[in-house]
């Protein structure tokens, strides 16, 4: 490559990292509540959360475009309240990454919070500790290995997100081009050298992220429990 434009790398890392952090917090909060409450329509709500997993990304993108677009419900509200635009900006890439990776984090977190004896939490509650304290000292550490698996999946999914991102963020070089977009347009334009360069980079990136998190989680797990 003659001109080494590293923007897509920087943007991909930024969107995947930020979306992972957001999805981690929101996914855990919702999964924790859902695992401990029963209410009317819970199953329907759960199915809705997992919808982005089964829908083709372009369909998700289409839905997001109509929701966050200039004439969309949320898009108009944001424009009116904060003069803020999501569509055709890197925030569009962020929203897309959040939406498609949320189900993976949610699934992992639900499984993680469901796998240990609920009486362990109850025992802590009878000892006079607040739910917040119990969550951080008991629930979170016990669910940690499963949560970490969710983080790995969410990050990888966010990094590789293409369909919905392209729809919502559009392709604007230097502003919204993530690595998958750079690869797609390079392939379409027949620029195979450029495509190969980015493919190798994203493979290294994805592999390194998963490898590191796996290594770290096994190390942590060995320390704690079997």
């Amino acid at each position: 490559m003659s001109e080494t434009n590293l923007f897509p790398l920087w943007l991909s890392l930024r969107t995947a990292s930020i979306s992972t952090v957001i999805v981690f917090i929101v996914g855990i909060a919702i999964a924790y509540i859902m695992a401990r409450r029963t209410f009317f329509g819970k199953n329907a709500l759960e199915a809705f959360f997992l919808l982005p997993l089964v829908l083709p990304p372009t369909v998700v993108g289409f839905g997001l475009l109509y929701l966050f677009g200039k004439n969309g419900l949320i898009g108009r509200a944001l424009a009116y309240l904060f003069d803020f635009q999501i569509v055709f900006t890197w925030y569009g890439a962020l929203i897309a990454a959040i939406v498609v990776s949320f189900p993976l984090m949610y699934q992992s977190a639900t499984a993680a919070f469901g796998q240990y004896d609920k009486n362990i939490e109850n025992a802590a509650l009878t000892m006079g500790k607040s739910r917040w304290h119990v969550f951080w000292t008991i629930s979170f550490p016990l669910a940690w290995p499963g949560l970490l698996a969710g983080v790995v999946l969410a990050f990888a999914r966010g990094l590789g997100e293409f369909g919905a991102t392209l729809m919502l963020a559009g392709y604007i070089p230097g502003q919204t081009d993530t690595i998958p977009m750079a690869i797609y347009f390079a392939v379409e334009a027949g620029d195979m050298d450029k495509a190969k360069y980015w493919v190798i980079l994203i493979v290294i990136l994805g592999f390194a992220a998963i490898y590191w998190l796996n290594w770290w989680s096994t190390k942590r797990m060995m320390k704690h429990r079997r």
Partner: protein
Amino acid sequence: MKKIIVVSLFFIVSLSMSGCNEEKTELQVAAAASLTDAMKEIKTVYEKEHDVDLSFNFAGSGKLAQQIQQGAPVDVFVSANEDWMDRLEQESLIETDTKEDVVGNELVLIAKKGSNFNYSSMEDIDKTELDDIAIGMPESVPAGAYTKQTLQATEQWDDLEDLFIYAKDVRQVLTYVESGNADVGFVYESDAETSDQVEVLATADSVNIDSIVYPGGVTASSTNKSEAEAFLTFLQTEEVQDVLDKYGFVSR
């Protein structure tokens, strides 16, 4: 995915046919996605008059060309783009003497219906009124390449460049304009015809761009060359050209 469906359909069809005595000739036609609706109508007409089954594979011209390069069983290729046809011809994958221009198209400027833009030509585009302009990626989408050509000819390209949102295909350009996220967009006239939510503001001046043609040809690997050629000839008839005209194409 589309390929899998087409292949499996082909399989099902051939299975059901194996029980019959008279074997109908089946022609595999790979046609540019923009021709989808028109070709469906043409298929009905053609199959009524001829003892031939037509199977279509609609996709972007580049994708179809790549499939042919990889040996997909195709008899007739109708491309929306001359480059891909030329490339296949150079690789001797298309019978040169069968190559023919099937139909033409025009590049148009569109906006959402009811918008207030009064641009009767490309030169009227007023940057100060616009936030976003949706165009096909010039390097990969033929309509995008023509957009670049026409705007460069009128020396507007550099000026408007920072408003461009690049789309991966014309369908995406339409979606952006239909949903009001892009103020205007550039598509083929036949694409604009498929949407009742957009209106054509202006048509690109033919002196500014190469004429937009859809070349067709019989593949070198075709096992039904005479039937394939007959179909290509049929596409030139007035009857077919009228159908294409109806769908917004420019008849030859």
